[in-house]
């Protein structure tokens, strides 16, 4: 036990800043949502309007979760829980894989394993670290809600709900780490499990049954197969029930009880799934920098593209459904007309524009990740190997940036094609001022291309984010990761919660996405798009110049 505690201390020290950032960030997000709800939706009537819209809309249910009445706390929980739970799941899985399979792959585990400690001691320490991190996180979320003016009991239970989901994923990631041959594969699989939990819950929630007053929704059975769905069942601010959390914690304990003996008995580095052999010689494109850049990015790009395509499908398929639901409910239609202001745009289009906006951020994330891979190549010393060859830095950089730009294009295109295809199969939208597209709307082929164009409208803004990351890599390589992801997270928060947080216009203007045309609601505006593309070219040229004139190294 002493060795476990010693290892725990070492692991905690290694992670201290990283975990602190995750925990503080998630806690602050809770505070922001709670605070915004208090200031903007202080009255029950205001909350009731939003809840009614959400309860009647499968897409809202899919994205956010099921509403649980008009109570302020329940409103915050409904708005933030799914998102918070996903972040917590990612924090937990990355934490576990970092200290288990990734360490085994890098050889650090061998070093520790040679010390007089039981074979399973490092994993036991990691599980404890996961427990501690999630307890701290639960406290941070609870404090955020409390500071946002919510009742103590509900805030505490809501925090524990988030922490319990995290604990579940600590156990799940520990199991995945035993099965997968590499840290990369383990991280990908574990993160995919988190995404799957969100999607399964979303599906169950989307097919849930709303009550007569549209104040709450009973999720359908799929939600019972998702840990995030279980966490949601706790209903901390209304009919508080800690039993689902006990189930989550129980599963986590069970997983730990399985995983620790497995690690104790298996060989160091052994895994259920083995690394396959590959080709003994380079294939097509295997002898060029562009081919290498593509090779390194393609699998992660596929992940981003699939995520964007799912969102696109949802927007295309559910938009008309939502419009019909609103059309069948005159009081709701009136409500939305009031909320949306004078010129009521088509409900379906508002919804599609919002989802495609998120796919724009996903596209930027894919591109930023491709750019930051360049930094990883430099840090690992592989860049040195390449640039000792007769290829110039601009050429290598150009190959990387091309793949990054292509990633952005591929993700937005995937979203647009999926949305367009789904719209072909969805019921033709009913004509009318509030529903479907504008009266006498375009035929389905036009609609298809309109949705593809709507997704592509976010291309310039996404490219700006990528170009900023490129400049950060060239000018301040040590800060590239923070400068690459930071603005993107900021843009996502501004986009998702900017209206909710009631931020001033200039702050929202900081996000390039705020300058994208929100098609199909708005018309495409060429001027801001061209300005942004010009900025992309200038930023990329500046980055190339700066990279040419700096030292390379770790």
């Amino acid at each position: 036990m002493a060795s476990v505690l010693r290892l725990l201390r070492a692991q905690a020290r290694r992670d201290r800043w990283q975990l602190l950032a995750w925990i503080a960030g998630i806690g602050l997000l809770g505070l922001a949502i709670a605070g915004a709800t208090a200031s903007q939706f202080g009255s029950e009537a205001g909350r009731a309007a939003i809840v009614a819209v959400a309860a009647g809309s499968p897409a809202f249910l899919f994205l956010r979760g099921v509403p649980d009445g008009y109570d302020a706390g329940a409103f915050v929980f409904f708005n933030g829980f799914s998102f918070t739970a996903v972040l917590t799941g990612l924090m937990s899985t990355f934490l576990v894989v970092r200290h288990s399979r990734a360490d085994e792959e890098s050889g650090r585990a061998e070093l520790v394993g040679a010390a007089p400690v039981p074979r399973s001691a490092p994993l036991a320490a990691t599980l404890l670290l996961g427990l501690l991190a999630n307890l701290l996180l639960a406290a941070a979320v609870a404090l955020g809600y409390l500071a946002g003016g919510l009742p103590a009991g509900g805030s505490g239970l809501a925090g524990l709900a988030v922490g319990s989901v995290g604990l579940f994923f600590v156990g799940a990631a520990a199991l995945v780490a035993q099965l997968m041959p590499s840290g990369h594969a383990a991280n990908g699989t574990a993160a995919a499990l988190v995404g799957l939990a969100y999607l399964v819950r979303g599906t169950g929630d989307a097919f849930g049954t709303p009550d007569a007053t549209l104040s709450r929704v009973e999720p359908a059975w799929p939600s019972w197969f998702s840990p995030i769905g279980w966490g949601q069942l706790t209903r901390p601010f209304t009919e508080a029930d800690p039993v689902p959390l006990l189930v989550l914690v129980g599963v986590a304990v069970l997983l730990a009880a399985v995983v620790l003996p497995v690690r104790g008995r298996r060989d160091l580095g052994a895994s259920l799934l083995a690394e396959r052999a590959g080709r003994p010689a380079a294939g097509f494109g295997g002898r060029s920098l562009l081919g290498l850049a593509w090779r390194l990015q393609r699998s992660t790009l596929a992940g981003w593209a699939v995520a964007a395509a799912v969102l696109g499908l949802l927007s295309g398929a559910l938009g008309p459904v939502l419009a019909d639901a609103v059309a069948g409910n005159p009081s709701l239609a009136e409500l939305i007309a009031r909320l949306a202001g004078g010129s009521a745009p088509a409900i379906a289009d508002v919804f599609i524009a919002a989802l495609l906006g998120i796919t724009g951020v996903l596209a930027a994330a894919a591109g930023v990740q491709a750019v930051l891979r360049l930094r990883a190549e430099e840090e690992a010393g592989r860049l040195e190997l390449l640039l000792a060859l007769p290829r110039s830095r601009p050429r290598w950089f150009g190959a990387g940036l091309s793949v990054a730009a292509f990633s952005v294009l591929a993700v937005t295109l995937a979203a647009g094609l999926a949305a367009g295809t789904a719209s072909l199969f969805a019921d033709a939208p009913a004509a009318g001022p509030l529903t479907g597209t504008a009266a006498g709307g375009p035929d389905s082929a036009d609609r298809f291309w309109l949705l593809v164009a709507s997704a592509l409208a976010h291309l310039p803004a996404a490219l700006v984010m990528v170009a900023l990351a490129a400049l950060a890599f060239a000018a301040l390589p040590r800060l590239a990761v923070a400068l690459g992801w930071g603005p993107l997270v900021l843009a996502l928060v501004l986009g998702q919660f900017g209206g909710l947080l009631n931020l001033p216009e200039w702050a929202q203007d900081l996000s390039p996405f705020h300058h994208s045309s929100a098609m199909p609601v708005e018309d495409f505006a060429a001027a801001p798009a061209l300005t942004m593309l010009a900025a992309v070219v200038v930023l990329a040229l500046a980055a190339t110049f700066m990279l040419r004139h700096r030292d390379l190294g770790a």
Partner: protein
Amino acid sequence: MVGQAAVVEASGLVKSFGRTRALDGLDLSVAEGEVHGFLGPNGAGKSTTLRVLLGLIRPTAGGVRVLGRDPWTEPVAVHRDIAYVPGDVNLWPNLTGGEVVDLLTGLRGGADAGLRERLLAEFELDPARKVRTYSKGNRQKVALVAAFARRARLYLLDEPSAGLDPLMDAVFRAQIRRVRDEGSTVLISSHILSEVEQLCSAVTIIRAGRAVESGSLEALRHLRRTHFRVTFTDPGAAVLPAGVHDARRENGTVEFDADASQLPGVLAQLARPDVASVEAAPPSLESLFLRHYGGGDR
């Protein structure tokens, strides 16, 4: 090597990283066709020098020419004739060894197919395995195969035999001899003295970012003292030649070091009937090395 063109010519190289001075006025000259050992302990600035020679980092001060060009302003032209093996070989974990070899040689213009197969066989490397599953030694071998599978005018090798077993080390040395016989120039950084002694015809020793000794191995040996151990038949008759260094006397045996210039005199003095045995050890690179690092006799 006077009269031959210098393939690598660096003078007064300075490289500062913040407050640390990794290179502090380094001079280095490598002549065409020689195998040049670049000796120094960890942290002396060997890898930094090689990165400057490749134009990966820019020297804070000083001039450098590689193959007649400035590597910072013309890296691509310089690299066309260079094969490089880094000191810390990091490869793409999801590529196979064969794919890495083809990538690295492909960017230089393509491997010699026959050479590639022969090298893979000699280094006993399975090209279908993912880099992730290779040991450190195997990763090193991938980098070596990639470097040797296409001819180059200059080979820059940063501690190339680290992680190789003795059999693979022999394969590596055979490759060095091959490229030397083909007329290529090799610069090997190392802290393994025996390796440099076996492979190299010239040596530069660096310490704290500065070259403290440079020249042909022969010339350097002349700078060093020969170690003598002389046993006399009659302990009472044991005498020390005049002017020698580090003399020790034990019963009828004396040990001492003699400068090259003293050798005729020492030998003359030892030409006596009561000398039972004389052992003379040639100056080793190790003693050369220790002189600069060990803080021994200066």
